[in-house]
């Protein structure tokens, strides 16, 4: 396939018009010494010679075959969660976001040429503020984990002079790894708070938080699915003059208290559950919202409302002087992009659900997960691990080695849950089970039956 519109003759003519006889001659003129080895893409056993490239039908066939070597959730009864959630995505989300005017657009640096996308991002920011009950939101970051890192950096900038960060060990393990990676260049270390009964041990938070603490980070529902006492944790943080960062699941906010309601300074998380495909882990979407007083410390792109020369309402990227292309080494972050298209999908999704829909969706998740939890609780060989209230995920301990269990479940087309042993050695025989609104009663009962058979 070739997307260069000019023929070789046309290219040759253009060269002659600028006074060069051939491209080789041009290169000789510009960089006589820059000799390099020729470009020879590797040949893979999966396809024939590559130097010419594939025709469109060959490419589509090759990609179909590769995709067919995967087994997607469409062919499974899946109970996998752990930071990536299988929610139903209404067709309008894909139909609208796949319009070329959206996906082939560039960053709206020239606002007069990009009012559509700017308005869509302004609406996204508003929707996130409403969902989290916070005062300002940016136009998205890469994912929940990097959003957490950025949120912590924001807190450190705000509380200059303080250098401690306290983070619950019940926050998603990959998020904690990313935070530690980001902090490596600084003198700040993230200290972990232990959990008990599936939730953060708040007495430990009370003991450890001090006047050197810049940020306290809790996730709710946490990695185990348990709901944390965010209000109390926030009070403790504020009593020590620290900021409180809430990592949240956006769908859960249809029914659970929102960060703004319990006084969080920064609310963030991953917006993948809002209308975005799983796509083997990315692209997802980091959302970040904060109180008005922290507005100018917020990283990432931000859209603001203004007027044009005729007094008409319009939208522009604003507060850009914090960003890399202006402040360079003094920037609030080096972020140059947002996940605009994913934010657009999230916005369409939230508008699709609306005020009522997000509540009903959250309640569907809640009811179905608790139905499964109650039924599993009556199966011999399975026991719930934590007594704490939960949203749509919970942890169970099984009497048999997990490898064998999951193998036998897989043979029945069931993905039973995520094994926790890889991150929490003390939970090595435990599964994190997730139930979204996509699990029908039949699928839930099938899961219970399969367990009964296998255990």
């Amino acid at each position: 396939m070739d997307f260069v519109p000019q023929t070789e003759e046309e290219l040759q003519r253009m060269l002659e018009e600028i006074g060069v006889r051939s491209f080789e001659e041009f290169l000789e003129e510009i960089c006589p010494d820059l000799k390099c080895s020729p470009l020879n893409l590797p040949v893979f056993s999966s396809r024939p010679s590559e130097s010419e490239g594939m025709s469109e039908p060959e490419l589509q066939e090759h990609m179909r075959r590769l995709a067919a070597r995967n087994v997607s959730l469409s062919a499974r009864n899946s109970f996998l969660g752990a930071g990536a959630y299988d929610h139903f995505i209404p067709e309008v989300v894909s139909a609208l976001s796949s319009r070329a005017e959206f996906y082939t657009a560039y960053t709206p640096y020239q606002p007069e040429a990009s009012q559509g996308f700017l308005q869509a991002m302004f609406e996204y920011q508003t929707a996130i503020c409403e969902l989290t009950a916070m005062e300002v939101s940016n136009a998205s970051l890469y994912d929940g984990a990097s959003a957490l890192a950025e949120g912590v950096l924001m807190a450190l900038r705000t509380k200059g002079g303080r250098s401690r960060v306290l983070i619950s060990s019940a926050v998603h393990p990959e998020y904690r790894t990313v935070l530690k990676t980001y902090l490596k260049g600084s003198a700040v270390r993230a200290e972990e708070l232990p959990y008990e009964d599936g939730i953060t041990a708040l007495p430990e938070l009370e003991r450890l938080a001090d006047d050197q603490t810049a940020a306290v980070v809790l996730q709710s529902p946490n990695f185990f699915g348990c709901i944390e006492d965010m209000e109390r944790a926030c009070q403790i943080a504020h009593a020590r003059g620290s900021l409180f960062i809430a990592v949240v699941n956006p769908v859960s906010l249809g029914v659970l208290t929102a960060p703004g309601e319990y006084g969080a300074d920064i609310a963030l998380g991953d917006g993948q559950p809002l209308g975005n495909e799983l796509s083997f882990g990315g692209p997802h979407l980091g959302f970040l919202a904060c109180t008005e007083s922290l507005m100018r410390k917020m990283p990432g792109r931000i859209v603001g409302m203004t007027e044009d020369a005729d007094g008409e309402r319009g939208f522009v990227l604003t507060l850009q002087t914090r960003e890399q292309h202006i402040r360079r080494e003094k920037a609030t972050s080096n972020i140059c992009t947002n996940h605009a298209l994913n934010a657009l999908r999230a916005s369409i999704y939230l508008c699709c659900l609306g005020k009522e829909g997000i509540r009903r969706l959250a309640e569907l998740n809640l009811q179905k997960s608790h139905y499964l939890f109650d039924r599993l609780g009556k199966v011999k060989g399975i026991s719930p691990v934590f007594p704490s209230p939960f949203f749509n995920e919970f942890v169970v301990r099984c009497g048999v080695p997990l490898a064998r269990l999951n193998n036998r479940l897989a043979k029945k087309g069931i993905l039973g849950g995520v094994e926790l042993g890889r991150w929490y050695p003390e939970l090595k025989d435990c599964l994190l089970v997730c139930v979204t609104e996509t699990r029908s009663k039949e699928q839930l009962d099938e899961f219970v039956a399969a367990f009964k058979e296998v255990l």
Partner: protein
Amino acid sequence: MEFPKELKYTKTHEWVLIRGPIAVVGITDFAQRELTDVVYVELPEVGKKVTAGAECAVVESVKAAVDIYSPLSGKITKVNEKLTDEPQLLNTDPYGEGWVLEMQPSNPSELDTLMNADQYQKIVEES
């Protein structure tokens, strides 16, 4: 362009007015013209100690964010809170209502290193 005679100036386009033990600091007419419309001023904390030449505040326009460097060493005693709601004062009245901060200089001899109005005007006209 204005270069009030009673003020002292820095190469980095700040002005200083000595009022007894206090020094008032702001940015010059030349600086505000280069910046164009000021949208935000990040003021330092009262009580902060600064050294001559160190950054003490940030002025933002739509296209640039520029540091204000303290002309003298000392302690900041007052900041112009009005700039939070009316940053454009830096454009409309840079030598009057647009003052940025007041400080207590700790090293009076530093004043001798500053320029007078004629010297500063010469520098601006040459650039």
